[in-house]
């Protein structure tokens, strides 16, 4: 198998060509993580600023919001770990990624044809992946430190103060990364299908992940 594809990829000739991008397992794993992240953002923001405290109403009040938020965090951590082990290999940094970053302005300006050919993930997606991975580790570690219901006795109050600050800052960052992730999926039409049906069209793969498509075709011929 070439370095740009994984076991989930498969090509179906036709008009248009259809390409399998994510297995049902990967999609289920993604959506469990997504739901957790949204619930965590809503419950977390409710405790972050008084102007959003009303969001506690979605969770049955302040007490239940406070109680449930860390548990959702644990589920997210486990779920994201699954995604991490599924996706980390194809998210390793490659030579073309630096070039891609250098041309990021062209992408935003609508000149995607000037971008280098990339594999299953482009440098932007890789940064989202590694950004999320890093921030989730920081969030779970700082979150456990301030999970006073069970872990109060294990750290000092000055440590907890730093943890709560770090937790807030990394939450702001991960929500920002999440907005970028969601916006990219909306802006680049045809992307959503990858995570709903598991498939994208050949044209989508040609346009955005040509190396991945080429390697899939090669792999298909060898099969």
């Amino acid at each position: 198998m070439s370095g740009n594809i994984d076991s989930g990829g498969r090509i179906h000739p036709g008009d248009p060509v259809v390409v399998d991008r994510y297995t049902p397992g990967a999609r289920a794993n993604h959506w469990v993580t997504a739901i957790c992240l949204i619930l965590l953002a809503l419950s977390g923001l409710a405790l972050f600023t008084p102007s959003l405290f009303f969001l506690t109403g979605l969770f049955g009040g302040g007490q239940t919001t406070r109680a449930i938020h860390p548990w959702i965090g644990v589920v997210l951590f486990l779920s994201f770990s699954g995604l991490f082990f599924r996706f980390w290999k194809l998210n390793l940094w490659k030579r073309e990624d630096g070039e891609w970053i250098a041309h990021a302005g062209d992408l935003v300006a609508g000149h995607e044809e000037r971008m280098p050919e990339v594999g299953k993930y482009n440098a932007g997606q890789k940064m989202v992946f590694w950004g999320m991975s890093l921030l989730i580790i920081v969030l779970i570690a700082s979150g456990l430190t301030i999970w006073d219901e069970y872990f109060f006795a294990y750290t000092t109050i000055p440590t907890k103060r730093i943890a709560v600050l770090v937790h807030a800052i990394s939450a702001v960052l991960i929500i920002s990364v999440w907005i970028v992730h969601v916006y990219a999926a909306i802006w680049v039409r045809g992307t959503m299908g990858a995570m709903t049906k598991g498939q994208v069209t050949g044209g989508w793969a040609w346009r955005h992940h040509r190396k991945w498509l080429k390697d899939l075709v090669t792999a298909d011929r060898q099969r």
Partner: protein
Amino acid sequence: MYPPLPNPGTGPSAPKFGEKDLVRRSASTVTPPAQRQTQVAKLIDVSKCIGCKACQSACQEWNDLREEVGTNDGTYNNAHDLTPASLTVMRFTEWDNPETGNLEWLIRKDGCMHCEDPGCLKSCPAPGAIVQYSNGIVDFDHTKCIGCGYCVKGCPFNIPRISKVDNKAYKCTLCSDRVAVGQGPACQKACPTQAIVFGPKDDMKKWADGRIADLKSRGYKTAGLYDPQGVGGTHVMYVLQHADKPEIYAGLPNNPRISPVVELWKGLTKYTGLAVMGAVAAFGFVHHMIAGPNKVSAEDEANASKLAGGKS
């Protein structure tokens, strides 16, 4: 002797302060009352304390709390620490005075200091769960507390405790319910030596001056009042024999203030954080308005077909 507060009448009386006297309310804005009530304070004279714990008993009695039967840890501390059921505890310290060679038994009644600049209130995310009245009392409203423990992190004195029973924060109320009807706190009422006195803060300072003069005349050169300005002053003050080193009194902080970490968290982080998230979302919105969607063209599909079709 400080003149004792008169006993209350037997008839019902309206509370002397309430919602309309709030100067601060957690996670919300209030319009402070035009006229501030007389600021009150509890003055704890450590030099007069005999360690009888009548104040602890009175506190539990008045607040209908019962501490669990504990164990002896080899000191007189009992309870060993503040708990949701022990809103005040006596902390016993045996201090070897290097100047005189005397062993001094320092007994400090610990509990909420009722800061003028309350770190607990400023950290609290639940609207109205912590309030500050214009007379200086900082009080918790348990119906609104969510048990997050942010007050514990905000407090410079390590006072609030979260109950394992109902997951709510507890601390001394300065007997706001008693003060509201013209009484002093239960601990003050019970103190047999007037080591605890209660009244208008100005009067308490004057009373402390007399006590400090007396202590100085007895050789305690550094006797003084503990009313830390880092938290805007407190509505519980101490007369200390050695006011230059409050930390010898079981870790009473020297120059306490709200932790800069807490201020950064509740200040800059909150506003910058909201701005950053808003800016990222706004960028996406504006970009889509200007650039439009990134669509796959018919040419892309044709290229893909050509590439894939080559094999079949």
